[in-house]
């Protein structure tokens, strides 16, 4: 029953999407704007059937209806309810189905929010989004169909979702965040291709284009950081980012979208870089599809394995189609988008944004090259090589420093052409801030480094601190200066800040995000180059010194939970001031044994403090002797990578806040003020 209903809904969604795509693109091109309501109905139909299909699947999972193939694949009677719901996206077919629901939600939101918009803008955009939706509905209906019948006899229990999914609560929110980021890029893709098909990029496109990119960008940022947090808290190797193909797959669209969000500023203000900005939007979308292919087709296990996956070839065709359509549109329709201004100098705001775009593209290209290079050599020369973390670190660090530098210089430069004298004068305070940051770090770690409390650090890390101080001063100045101008008798400082933020929300929010990025950069630099590592095998009562902390082993314990058994090491962390924090009875680092999984899954102990983490993972234990081996680290500032998430989200939300309608007359801000935005 469930299977028939679910599959029927998917087919209905496919039908709606295909109808919407055909009608939208055809009537859009022939400029018959009366057809818009039909396109909108098709979008609503697609959204409703996709979301309902997902609800049916969740129902089947909860009722353990093993006659549905996907439930038989990932369901289990012993899995806790919350993880049963999560198993909707724990495997390929389910995750593509879930993808469909998110696509439905996005398309509905876009069509509904802009329902009063003129057909001339909406038909083509909605039509192109429906075309993408058609592809995903086709995937769910065909190659990745989760509804197929289970071969007889129908089992009474299943293997349960992947053990790693059940290991940590972050796994519940990390994947939906990434999906929301990936799928959301469909909307700017639709807007951009719609504009290209129409051959004009009117002012009315610009704000929706930017805002509809900022939404998935925010989800993608949160998803990536949560993913790294999850890796850190669960995998136990003491890192959070390994430049793994799956991580790179999420990072590349983020980079392209970040470049895009910056270049829209030049587009909105100077009415130039039109083609380039649209190319970035198309590129970001294309990279989400490539990323999905990379993570879902098994291509990284071996070049030759993807043809055996259900969705590999279909995806490859879609990647090629999207690329060809994008290039053709840019080449054929691009010349119609005329730049209305010419850039006078690189030494200006628009120049710095262009350089920012270049640097982001260079990093995207580097990540793409490094990720796909082994595939290329294997496919062409049948030679297997590895491109791993050391390569990416060497290449990405200088680029990241360049980004930090531009993040400081860019906001300082005026539009048009900067005056060298003024710029030099404005540089003094930030430069002092940079020097101060380095000195402060040196003072804070003086003695501590030589005593082995921290690692010795690298030149790159120190440069990152300096640049971070530089950027922090400039960004704070940009955040607060407009507020100072608004301060008068009767307004306090806080009120002035709120007012200046509400007058130019995009600008204010953008700088808040910059502050978040500065914090993340500092945390990355500090935790990677000033960490301390120790390892060893301990008998009960023995201690392991790591940095200024001592890890005391108090023996092994084990226990049983409904879906797993575990063995854990009881540990006490002894602080330098003698304070002791004990982790016993499963709260220490442990090995989890799941039913029907031969290998245990380890989970580390993260002793979280504000300025540093003490991180211990259990490598091995000997139950007979009662001894255990550990890897232990002290990571300075590492937690600030994830503590920065609320700052990023807050900044994005401020930027998305609708500006008070600029009416003709008194309420409109004066042009000079509006120009600051």
């Amino acid at each position, binding site marked *: 029953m469930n299977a028939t209903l679910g599959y029927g809904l998917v087919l209905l969604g496919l039908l709606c999407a295909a109808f919407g795509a055909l009608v939208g693109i055809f009537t859009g091109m022939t400029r018959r704007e009366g057809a818009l309501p039909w396109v909108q109905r098709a979008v609503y139909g697609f959204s409703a059937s996709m979301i309902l299909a997902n609800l049916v699947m969740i129902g089947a999972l909860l009722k353990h209806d093993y006659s549905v193939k996907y439930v038989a694949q990932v369901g289990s009677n012993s899995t806790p309810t919350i993880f049963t719901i999560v198993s909707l996206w724990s495997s390929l077919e389910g995750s593509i189905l879930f993808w469909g629901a998110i696509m439905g939600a996005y398309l509905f939101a876009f069509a509904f929010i802009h329902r009063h918009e003129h057909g001339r803008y909406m038909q083509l955009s909605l039509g192109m989004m429906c075309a993408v939706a058609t592809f995903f509905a086709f995937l769910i209906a065909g190659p990745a169909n989760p509804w197929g019948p289970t071969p007889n006899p129908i089992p009474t229990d299943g293997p349960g979702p992947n053990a790693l999914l059940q290991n940590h609560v972050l796994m519940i929110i990390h994947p939906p965040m990434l999906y929301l980021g990936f799928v959301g890029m469909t909307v700017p893709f639709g807007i951009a291709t719609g504009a290209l098909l129409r051959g004009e990029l009117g002012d009315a496109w610009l704000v929706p284009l930017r805002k509809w990119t900022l939404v998935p960008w925010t989800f993608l940022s949160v998803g990536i950081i949560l993913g790294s947090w999850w890796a850190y808290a669960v995998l136990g190797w003491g890192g959070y980012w390994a430049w793994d193909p799956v*991580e790179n797959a999420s990072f590349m669209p983020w980079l392209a979208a970040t470049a895009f969000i910056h270049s829209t500023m030049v587009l909105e203000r100077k009415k130039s870089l039109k083609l380039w900005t649209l190319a970035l939007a198309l590129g970001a979308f294309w990279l989400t599809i490539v990323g999905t292919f990379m993570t879902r087709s098994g291509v990284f296990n071996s070049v030759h394995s993807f043809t055996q996956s259900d969705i590999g070839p279909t995806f490859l065709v879609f990647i090629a189609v999207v690329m060809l359509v994008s290039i053709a549109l840019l080449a054929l329709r691009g010349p119609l988008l*005329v730049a209305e201004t010419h850039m006078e100098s690189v030494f200006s705001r628009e120049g710095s944004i262009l350089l920012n775009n270049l640097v982001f593209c260079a990093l995207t290209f580097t990540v793409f*090259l490094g990720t796909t290079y082994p595939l290329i050599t294997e496919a062409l020369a049948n030679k297997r090589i*590895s491109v791993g973390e050391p390569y990416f670190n060497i290449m990405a660090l200088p680029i990241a420093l360049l980004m930090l530098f531009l993040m400081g210089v860019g906001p300082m430069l005026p539009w048009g052409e900067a005056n060298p004298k003024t710029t030099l004068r404005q540089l003094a305070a930030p430069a002092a801030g940079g020097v101060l940051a380095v000195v402060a770090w040196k003072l804070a770690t003086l003695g501590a480094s030589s005593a082995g409390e921290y690692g010795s650090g690298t030149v790159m890390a120190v440069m990152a601190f300096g640049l971070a101080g530089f950027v922090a001063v400039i960004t704070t100045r940009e955040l607060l200066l407009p507020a100072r101008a608004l301060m008068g008798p009767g307004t306090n400082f806080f009120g002035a800040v709120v007012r200046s933020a509400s007058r130019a929300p995009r600008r204010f929010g953008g700088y808040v995000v910059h502050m978040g990025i500065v914090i993340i950069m500092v945390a990355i630099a500090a935790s990677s180059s000033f960490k301390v590592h120790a390892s060893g095998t301990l008998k009960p009562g023995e201690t392991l010194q790591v940095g200024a902390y001592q890890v005391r082993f108090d023996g092994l314990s084990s226990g049983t939970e409904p879906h797993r058994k575990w063995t854990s090491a009881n540990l006490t962390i002894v602080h330098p001031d003698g304070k002791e924090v004990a982790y016993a009875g499963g709260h220490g680092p442990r090995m989890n044994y799941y039913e029907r999984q031969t290998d245990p899954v380890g989970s580390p102990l993260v002793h979280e403090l504000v300025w540093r983490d003490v991180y211990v993972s*259990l490598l091995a234990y000997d139950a007979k002797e009662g001894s255990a081996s550990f890897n232990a680290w002290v990571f300075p500032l590492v937690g600030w990578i994830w503590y920065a998430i609320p700052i990023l989200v807050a900044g994005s939300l401020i930027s998305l806040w609708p500006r008070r309608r600029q009416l003709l007359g008194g309420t409109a801000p004066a042009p000079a003020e509006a120009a600051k935005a």
Partner: protein
Amino acid sequence: MVLALLAALSLAQGDYAPGRAGTEPLDAAREARVQALGKQLRCPVCQGTSIADSPSSIARAQLDKVRELVAEGKTDDEIFAYFVARYGDFALLSPRKEGVTSLLWLMPGLMLIFGVLIIVLQVKKKPKTAAPAAAPAAAPADDPFLEAVRKDLKQ
């Protein structure tokens, strides 16, 4: 599609075999070298993780081998050569800068340099037509009156 999960999976699939403790670390300076070398070598059962990072027993056995070679006083190059001789270039996480592979190291830098050149040339180039074709004659781009009329027309 669960990003990072695949990596995690392959990490976990490496037999975790609790019970094997590995050799004891060397003195601080040499152990740091062991860890640094381990970062450069690929764990055979993982997806792109180094033997210094992987908790799998096979990676830890390889790290023990590195430790043994360091203790014997071998140089970094000799240790890399040891692993390449057995497992090929695949064992190196940082590909060698020779032959076609040097492209991998050069291309990002070249792209940056060309990009800067293109930007500078574009900016220096004077626009062909002095006045932007799209802007109507007298009205400045941000004329509020024109904006309001445009907005009304769109509704």
